């Protein structure tokens, strides 16, 4: 599971050149919204050359391609031989995902940004190659003709729908970006809300957002300590259910404790045998 997905414009050499230095778990190189139409062919050349020249380690790289009618087939044909992890598909629908599947075997992340795709989120999530759903709140609220706010009350339904669909399909649920790069407090609050709903990661539109997003998806010390106590008592107890601090502990809670420790290890804040 990736905590952070950082969007990098595909037409900016200086940004592409440093895409792997910000500790984002994953990068989405964008050929779509952040690239002006006059720059799209040059951006594809740049991205292709970069990917063929540099071997990026420790960071999953995805490319957000353009609409199918516009340039998606050519873009996927150009990039299929590179080492990218997969593609982010804008305005995703069940039928579009099927079309894309005929162009590539690579994993796909579906961008859910229309009312119809929100309602069909589970069908899209169940598609074979789809490994994650991203909520695209800006396009969605524009279509709904509603105001996009910092509090995000207007996207609560979509957030829940996407989380449930993703978890039902066993894939990643990735939250929409917080679009105010200088508002750290707002970003942290927004990320906490997303995490509390069930999102497994969040997109970032600025490198300075990555550290805060990563931090929110790392279990805190209190959670790690509590999880260690649960696992220790479970080993010691040997029963399916037991009491700890006056609360009943059973299989789901033990599994959650294991997940907390796994997430902590993945984030590098817990050594491999620290839960022993």
């Amino acid at each position: 599971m990736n905590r952070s997905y950082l969007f990098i414009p595909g037409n900016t050499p200086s940004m592409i050149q440093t895409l792997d230095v910000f500790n984002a778990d994953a990068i989405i190189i964008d050929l779509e919204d952040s690239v002006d139409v006059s720059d799209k062919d040059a951006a594809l050349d740049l991205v292709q050359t970069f990917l063929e020249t540099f071997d990026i380690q420790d960071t999953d790289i995805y490319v957000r391609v353009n609409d199918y009618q516009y340039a998606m087939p050519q873009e996927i044909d150009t990039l299929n031989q590179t080492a990218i992890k997969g593609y982010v598909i804008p305005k995703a629908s069940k039928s579009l995902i099927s079309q894309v599947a005929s162009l590539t075997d690579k994993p796909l992340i579906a961008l859910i940004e229309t009312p119809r795709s929100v309602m069909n989120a589970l069908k899209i999530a169940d598609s074979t190659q789809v490994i994650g759903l991203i909520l695209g709140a800006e396009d969605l609220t524009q279509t709904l003709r509603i105001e996009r706010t910092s509090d995000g009350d207007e996207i609560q339904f979509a957030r829940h729908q996407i989380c449930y669909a993703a978890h039902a399909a066993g894939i990643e649920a990735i939250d929409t970006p917080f679009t105010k790069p200088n508002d750290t407090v707002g970003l942290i609050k927004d990320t906490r809300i997303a995490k509390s709903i069930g999102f497994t990661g969040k997109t970032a539109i600025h490198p300075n957002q990555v550290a805060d997003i990563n931090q929110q998806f790392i279990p805190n010390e209190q959670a790690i300590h509590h999880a260690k106590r649960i696992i220790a008592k479970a080993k010691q107890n040997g029963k399916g259910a037991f009491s700890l601090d006056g609360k009943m502990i059973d299989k789901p809670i033990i599994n959650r404790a294991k997940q907390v420790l796994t997430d902590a290890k993945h984030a590098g804040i817990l050594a491999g045998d620290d839960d022993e």
Partner: protein
Amino acid sequence: MSKPVFLNSIPDLFEHINIHEHKHISFHHHLRNGDDVINRVLSIYEAYNVKDIHLHPSAIFPSYHRILSLIKRGQITDITTSYINGDVGEYISEYGLKGNLLMTSHGTRARGIIEGKESINIAYLAVPTVDQNGNGTGTIGPSRCGSLGYAVADSEHADIVVLITDNIVDETLINPQIDGRHVDYVITVESIGDPKGIVSGITQLTTNPIGVKIAHTAATILTSLSSMKSGFSYQSGAGGISLKVTDYLRQYMETSNIKAQFFSGGITAYHVNMLTEGLVEELYDVQCFDLRAVESISQYEHHHAISASKYANPQDDTRVIKALDFVILGATEIDVNFNCNVTTDSFNTIIGGSGGHHDVAEEANVTIVVSPLIKGRIPIVKDRVTTITTPGQHIDIFVTERGVAINPNREDLINELSQTNINLLPIDTLKNIAENYTGKPKEIGQSHEPIGYILDRDYNRIDTLYKKKG
């Protein structure tokens, strides 16, 4: 000493002294790009067609355009300074001077003036406020600039000391920075400069993501060291990355309940805020970088204006930086032997100078240089820097967005930081990483015609400045 003579215009001075007899003249740069004094004084030298002038400004800023005019006319033949930025640097790089350019650190300049190695005939000192006894201060007045640290040695050791001010006060100044007993003339003018150019309203933390990453790494290094504990001392410049390091450090100090003994050097609002919040006990200020620092220096008794000698003169036993634990510095280039260049760019154009770089790097216990690995598509790490400003033995840690190199002569730091998650790499590896992106840059090269020299803190030549290739 008799009381100084008060005059109403700069030309009046030359009814008292022969302008042609005093060739070594000095200025300070505390009014930075807002300085109106240096141009006005030199315009008179131009009018009198004074020859063979040896100029000793503490620094040259882009707005000091009259200097270039006198160089082109052949009147200024030699310059000794700590920093040059703007047209003057570009011109000298291209054509040189009739004589020599000598570039020293701030501490060396103070030492040279005090020891007579750098002999000043007339010091023309812009001073924001002067009293009836010739005492001067930079902390008050319409053109206030805060500390006058770089002017103190000139005011005490020049043959003739001339203060130029736009604010004469009747009451005797308490704790003046310029001692009136050394002053020969005080000239009142309408204005000594433009306040907008003297200090910036606010110095800014970097928000550039590469800068933020570098600053975070540098702060992680600082907070990982066992010597980072209450009572530590610290200096950072006013650059965006350096200030961001200071900001991260501040957060760490707040959460870890650590208090610093002192901060030194150029002082900004961020340093002042840490003083008022009780995170640091003393500020030793040789140069104010913003309005908040200027206001603070007369507001808080623990914010001290100090002279360049007290700051960094290697012969001054009470120098502040003798006790400096950590310093954050920048660089235009660094090489595989950790030599640092802050004097020229990679095209061999003079764009700066040591300032305090060499001083603090030599004295601080841990000297950290922060820089993006690639600037303007040019790798910052070279086989050999274009110009050595600060020798590599004084640079301990080099922090970039892609990794950190520790000088092999600091085994203690290597051992300590190897226990952390910081990505430690040999400096050659950083060079290779940069060149992997940019390719190996074509050497610009230099002519074989020397135009000046970089001096160390004992006046030894450590590098030669050559004319640019034609």
